């Protein structure tokens, strides 16, 4: 009486579980890890500056930067700087992003727009917008409009690029479906193309707005009395590292906030992705 073993197969070898080799490649949300990285980094720098293995001209002490920030907030001067900066960022990037999305969608939909505008956008994209600042000052004056224009131009090109890429990636069978049911052109664009492109547009927005923040500082280099950029530049000119870093921290916080807001928008608008 034999078990159903194949001839020649060694019997009674030890049973082992099949080794696991799946998993991974799917980052999950880990709460608090991001914060931990910041805290550890700051503690290490604090320790280094106190122990002396980081020179006080290399990096300022985080606690001093914190104190500077606190003073800034307590004296109310934080808002003097933050207010103008935020309104510049808001107006400039709103202009840039809305026109960018409109042009990007046009490039995605119309052959002539694509043929005519893609090379133009490719030509504008790599120009360091900061280099154009004097030109903007001549065109729009030294006041707010030139700053809006700089931020708008800087956010415009990446928005265009990501938007038309997103429109290109919309599932063509869905568009065929819309046509086969006799939907109007406008219905197809508004109900199929735009929602389908939204994930790509939103992730492009992260890049565009980060560039907007970078250009905010650049815009405030010229003729701005108030603004985070002006504050950072003044501090830099004086080698006041505490104030310099206080300004940098504020910029980073704005960056994190913007990214968080986009994340929020993605959660709400893209719930269908699950």
């Amino acid at each position, binding site marked *: 009486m034999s078990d159903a073993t194949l001839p020649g197969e060694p019997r009674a070898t030890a049973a082992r579980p099949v080794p696991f080799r799946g998993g991974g490649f799917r980052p999950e949300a880990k709460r608090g890890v991001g914060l931990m990285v910041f805290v550890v980094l700051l503690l290490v720098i604090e320790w280094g500056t106190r122990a002396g293995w980081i020179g006080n001209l290399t990096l300022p002490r985080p606690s001093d930067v914190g104190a500077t920030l606190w003073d800034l907030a307590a004296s109310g001067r934080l808002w003097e700087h933050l207010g103008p900066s935020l309104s510049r960022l808001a107006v400039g990037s709103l202009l840039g992003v809305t026109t960018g999305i409109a042009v990007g969608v046009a490039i995605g939909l119309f052959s002539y727009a694509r043929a005519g505008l893609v090379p133009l956008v490719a030509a504008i994209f790599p120009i360091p917008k900061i280099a154009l600042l004097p030109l903007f000052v001549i065109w729009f004056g030294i006041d707010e409009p030139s700053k809006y224009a700089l931020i708008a131009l800087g956010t415009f090109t990446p928005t265009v690029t990501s938007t038309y890429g997103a429109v290109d990636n919309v599932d063509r*069978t*869905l568009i*065929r*479906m819309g*046509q*086969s*049911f*006799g*939907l*109007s052109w406008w*219905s197809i664009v508004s*109900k*199929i193309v735009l*929602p*389908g492109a939204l994930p790509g547009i939103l992730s492009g927005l992260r890049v565009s707005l980060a560039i907007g923040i970078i250009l905010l500082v650049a815009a405030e280099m010229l003729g701005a009395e108030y603004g985070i950029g002006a504050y950072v530049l003044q501090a830099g000119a004086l080698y006041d590292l505490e104030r310099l870093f206080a300004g940098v921290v504020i910029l980073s916080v704005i960056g994190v906030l913007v990214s968080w807001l986009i994340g929020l928008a993605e959660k709400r608008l*893209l719930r*269908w*992705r*699950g």
Partner: protein
Amino acid sequence: MNLTLDQITHRYSGMPVLQEISLEIPAGEILCIVGPSGCGKSTLLRLIGGLEKPDEGQVLQLGTPPEGCLNPLTYVFQDFALLPWRTVGGNISLVLEDHGIKGRAADAIIDDVLARTKLSDFRKALPRQLSGGMKQRVAIARALAVNPAVMLLDEPLSALDAQTRELLMDDLLALWTRAPFTAVYVTHNLNEAVRLGHRIAVLSRRPGRVREVVEIDIPLAERHAGLARLDEVQAHLWGLMRDEAMAADQELLDV
């Protein structure tokens, strides 16, 4: 409303894909189209539905579509083509909105077609929450919502597993028995063809020509698995297709 295909020839970049196709699609009948892979079945369906223009010949519409028909020629796609950001109900209302049907009137139609496809409980579900078979039933419900004169189905069951396919075939039969519709049904599956087709057109390999049109005179309601006559027809179809399929396969290897 009847459709007539008159001497249709179509080419892609000079290479003929369909050649001199003439077929009749009478109202109330299901015409199945079978043929080896790449013989132009999907192309033919796009031509019939007006999504592409034939190079030569024409697709003719005889008579007017029935009263209340919103979209005379309506597709059901192999990959369902549901908008992932709309619920089941929203996907159906999509095709009604452009006809100005909103609110109550739309609700009534949506409820009706969902009931006919046994999906009433899933009106608020998103496509990603549905199984493949359910997604295709939603697509069928959406097609029914516009009250089509002719349904154009491109391998509607090919993306589904065998059991689901069997069930959906029964659903289609039940739908047809309750309210006969006209359909052009493209498939790879000869069993589907003999179960659903009043007539079955066999296309040759590329360039596709009509090799034979087989008529099955058994009423749809009386067709079931294991019927000798159906097996006979299926064997005959397979005989026609095998050489073509083998030759087509060979051609692809030669490229």
